[in-house]
């Protein structure tokens, strides 16, 4: 059969991709956030820190997106 030629040298690989593992691993480390104090706006650490991880996720994916564009 005929197949289209391989599309040049384009690749998914980039050292920046390693940064994506930060937001994958961070939320799995329960010892970081499984406590009550210090509270932020009345939120226990458990809640505000995990919400903060969302920002870490956004930061990392955005950075990798920009760098591998």
């Amino acid at each position, binding site marked *: 059969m*005929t197949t289209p030629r391989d599309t040049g040298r384009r690749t998914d690989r980039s050292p920046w991709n390693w940064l*994506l593992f930060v937001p994958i691993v*961070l939320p*799995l480390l329960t010892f970081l956030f499984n406590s009550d104090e210090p509270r932020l706006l009345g939120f226990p650490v*458990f809640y505000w820190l995990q919400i903060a991880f*969302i920002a870490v*996720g956004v930061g990392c994916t955005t950075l990798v997106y920009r760098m591998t564009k």
Partner: protein
Amino acid sequence: MSGHVTEIVVFTVLFLLVSGMGFVAARWRRPADLASLDEWELGGRNFGAWITWFLVGGDLYTAYTFVAVPALLFGAGAAGFFAVPYTVIVYPLVFLVMIRLWSVSHVHGLVTPADFVRVRFGSPTLALLVAITGIVATMPYIALQLVGIEAVLKTMGIAGGGFLSDLPLIIAFVILAAYTYQSGLRAPALIAFVKDVLIYVVIMVAIIYIPARLGGWDVIFGRAAEKFAATPAPNDGVLLNANNQLQYVTLALGSALALFLYPHSVTGVLASRNRDVIKRNMSALPAYSLLLALIALLGYMAIAAGVRPIGTDGNTVVPVLFDQMFPDWFAGVAFAAVGIGALVPAAIMSIAAANLFTRNIYREYLNKNATDAQEANVSKVTSLVVKVGAVLFILGIDPQFSIDLQLIGGVIILQTLPSVAIGLFTRWFHRGGLIAGWIAGMGTGMVLLYNISNPVTDHEHFGGSAFQLAKLGLDTKMTVYAGFLALIVNLVVSVLGTLVARAMRAPDGVDGTKPGHYTADEGDPRVKDLDLSGST
């Protein structure tokens, strides 16, 4: 019912307005012809960043999420918050995996995850297993969207028991079925805009207005802690304990891995225009995670507000909270947001399930030379059948049971990870090994789930997803997500099976893809117009 007239009117008006949009959607972005799967199912594979954002968001954050996650926090506390780390983990994962699926699907004209497995491993059997897994896992998911609508209808006092009281639910789904049939993926894509605007407005108001009325977040967390301290259940509380941390982590990771194996999320991603749209979305979609975190905390607000669920249906806590806290007209808007929030994913899910049937069962086994128009027709009809099935499901059985099935759905869809997700990176596995792994993982998952009891809901079997490690003979009270254990078994058997198959020189399927296909982008040549018979 009398106290809810304003709510019902607002709800109905918004609901009908959105349904009208669903029908008009067929004309949106003017396709010359809807009679092909690319058009009907994937909206012409041409959605840009904004539409994809709304579509995938509407797809992943369902009515069930809005209703069930806070219900989990209401009932069990911190353990229910797993939904937040889960949605943090999922996007970077997808960033790495799904763009490859998009590329290879673009080159080969693939529509479903099973299509990919078919081309990659040259095994119709493995593709069939993946397709069936997808359909079975999706059905209860659709039914759960109905649970979301039902919770709202119950709160407005227009559902409960008897045939007549089920009528509103049936009407809602008939409307949904009709416009999905007509407009395909364009309908939920267009409606997703309205849904999101409504949801965002409602939640923003809720998280400012309700805590202010209840006396602030300190009070809310304090009352939640008091409630959990007073219950005899060992694993609830506003924080995790030593025994449920492993469950929390494995459930978050397992759910993240499962999410993009679901056929409906694949549909949302494949409908985007190019790789850039997907990548950009993965950094923008977490805006929904923030929303989800805030929605989850509605569960604690309900505790602080002294909400009592209707009957034994825990899913009604959020609607009841809205009903108690908001003025009637705004409660109506909130209910409409949940109701419409159910329609978007239900439409996408039924489309995705229908396509699995069409592409991997109908075309593979029933009519090998199906034309594009025939495929589109079969999918349309199947999407109706799937929805009727979901309605019967919900009318016929206890909603609690459908939640159990959803749980099983998550565990079984995870078993397609080795062939679909890992298959995107390596062709090392032998098709025989993957089939063996699928069987082993599926079997393990079922046995584990069967052995999970839940004293709270009085279920002896299939009572949750937290498996007690003690049942394996380990001296611990820790629990772990059943799907995660099953996946490990699956992977081990897949590896061993591959080694055995290689040692026995069992014939392996032909890989129809080339490395370059996984990085192809918009505008690159496709296989489709060349010789299809060689690659599929």
